């Protein structure tokens, strides 16, 4: 019997090792959203309590029943097997309802193109982290 490939999702489990270089953000912006600016990144690294505090990652948590997809009236966002969403930009009306719906504020909005900046769980960011802070893991793995 062939093995079923389990979908993976992004985890930021080793944030204590993060140096705040934002290489992950720049990679997401550059390779997924074709923009130089980290504003266009779906993963967001920031400090909590200033640089004397810790770095934290605001990321899509890959919900099993994503509120963003439930809020989307045009089926641009649909739940993805194993968690998170699939995004079809063609169908997106730019209504921003997904942005409001996300409980952890992981979706920001590209005001120029009137589209949400969503994580598609592609894992590009993980390959650009010099400290292996980020990883793509099986959805049910803790």
């Amino acid at each position, binding site marked *: 019997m062939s093995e079923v490939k389990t979908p993976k999702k992004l985890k930021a489990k080793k944030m204590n090792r993060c140096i705040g270089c934002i*290489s992950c*953000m720049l990679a997401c912006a550059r390779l997924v959203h074709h923009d130089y*600016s*980290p504003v266009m990144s779906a993963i967001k690294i*920031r400090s909590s309590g200033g*640089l004397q505090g810790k770095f934290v990652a605001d990321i899509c948590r890959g919900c099993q029943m994503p509120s963003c997809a439930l809020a989307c009236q045009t089926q641009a966002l649909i739940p993805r097997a194993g968690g998170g969403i699939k995004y079809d930009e063609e169908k997106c009306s730019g209504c921003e309802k997904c942005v409001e719906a996300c409980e952890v504020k992981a979706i920001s909005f590209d005001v120029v193109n009137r589209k949400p900046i969503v994580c598609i769980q592609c894992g590009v960011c993980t390959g650009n982290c010099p400290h292996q802070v980020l990883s793509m893991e099986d959805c049910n793995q803790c």
Partner: protein
Amino acid sequence: MLIRNGIRILHIDLSKEEVKETERKDLTDYLGGIGVAIQLFKEYMQPDIDIFHEKQPIILSVGPLETIYPVATKTVAVFRSPLTGELGESYAGLRLGLAIRFTGYDTILITGKAKRPVYLNISSKGVVFRKAEPLWGLDTEESGRIMREMESGSGLRSIIRIGQGGEKLIKYAGVNVDTYRHFGRLGLGALFGSKYLKGIVIIGDGTESIGSQKEYQKTYSEIYKRVTETDAMEKYHDLGTTVNVLPLNDMNGLPTKNLKQSYFEDADKVSGEAFAEEKLIRKIACSGCPIGCIHIALYRNQFQQLEYEYIPVAYDHELVFAVGTFIGVKDKNTILSIIDCIEKFGLDCITTGVMMGWITEAYEKGIIGQEHLELDIRFGDGGTYLEIIHNIINEKNNFYKDLSFGTLYAAKKYGGEDFAAVLGGHEIAGYHTGYANLLGMAVGARHSHLDNGGYAIDQTTEFSDHEQIIQKLIEEEIARNILNCLVICLFARNIYDIDTIIKALAGIGIHWTETELKVLGKKIFYQKIQIKKALGFDYRKIEFPKRFFETKTLHGKMDSETAKKLLKIYNEKIDEICTDAIGLFAETKQDKRLI
């Protein structure tokens, strides 16, 4: 950015609370960073009026590669130095380069003086003037915290601010950048203070679509790999620049106890290895640099029985030298406490440390006494150095007020110029390697070891090969001008060779040849000399205090006659370059007259 048709300049007039945006096509000939900043400085500098006159400009500038290529992370500040009166040039990292780039401006020019304290909010949406009355009088940590909590843009912003040092116009006050980096040297903080400018929150909230995908992505990836997978930058990642402490000590190149020695008997206690083993708690990086060279140590202090406070403090070679070896302090925790104290007040750590070295020896020799210091000081006495710093900030008496003008001023007034570790009016950095270092800091545009890397030339060049020393100093300064147009971190100078620079620029649609880049580097070299002369710096009157010749370097003791001879050769060389340059670069009759 430069991918557009011109350099976008944001001019903020604090007196009128007015903002003007211009796009200058002519400035694209200077790439960005220091190239552009120097041109603007030429236009706005005020040689004939007071250093703190409201017309004196502050220029912050980034380059076209900023943040969008690895390790192109710095911002250059150009201004008239309150400390030396001549060219002020300083570099800082962390979030500032990213933030400026994505406001959509290449260069920020600030003139005028606010009526009462303000701070600025700059984003892609424009500029907002904020009252800073409650922040005036606060240190860099607390004022930074308040600005952070009052403003938006977490993760995409930079918060730069001054402490009480800048407010009180102490001439070696710096500007704190995102807590752990600084426009430390040459007194930009005092200039901020003179303008009632407490700080700036810069939010890089703009976007910039990538034009030609293929070449850019490929070049980015190649550079990223070289940065992360080769040993080109290993030293900066591992122990950081404190890796230099032990080798410098072993070669008699580590200025110690006001340069009475060039080795520290307790170097092993303050080495990069010792800090890493006992104090290092984390490293952080500038935005867009996967190296993470900013080493953070834990300062831990017991203030009562079983009661502790802790502060995460950044350290590097220069700081360990300035408030460690140079004042004979061997306890790491004490070094961290002095760094923290200086940085909270917003002073430059190198300048303050070097000055405290001079104070200690002047006191030892009886040139200054109890009536001046109102305390006893000996090399190594960490707690007393903290008191001295507080006394400078609090202007405790006339002596401490005089210290706010820097080491040279104090030494001229009280005596002890012979042992004041000052070159070109600027307190030295942490190297005593030989003639290239000595001359390099004396003649370098910002009187820094980073102008021309003299300390490295001393380690690779025959001591007696004077022509070679001069040649290398000049070539290195010209090469660094190119890097500084792109404001690439100088730690990545081995990654960004000229071919890589050309390729990186081409990847974003900017086409320069090797010759064009080299001509630009030379032109900036010439222009800086021109500016320094216009602001009163005389290369022929450079003096080398006796102390530099009394203490061994890695090549043994230097002698003053040789130093003078080298200076003479250097001056002849730059005269040649400037004569050539007149034909090439002088744009006005006045330019020609200045040479």
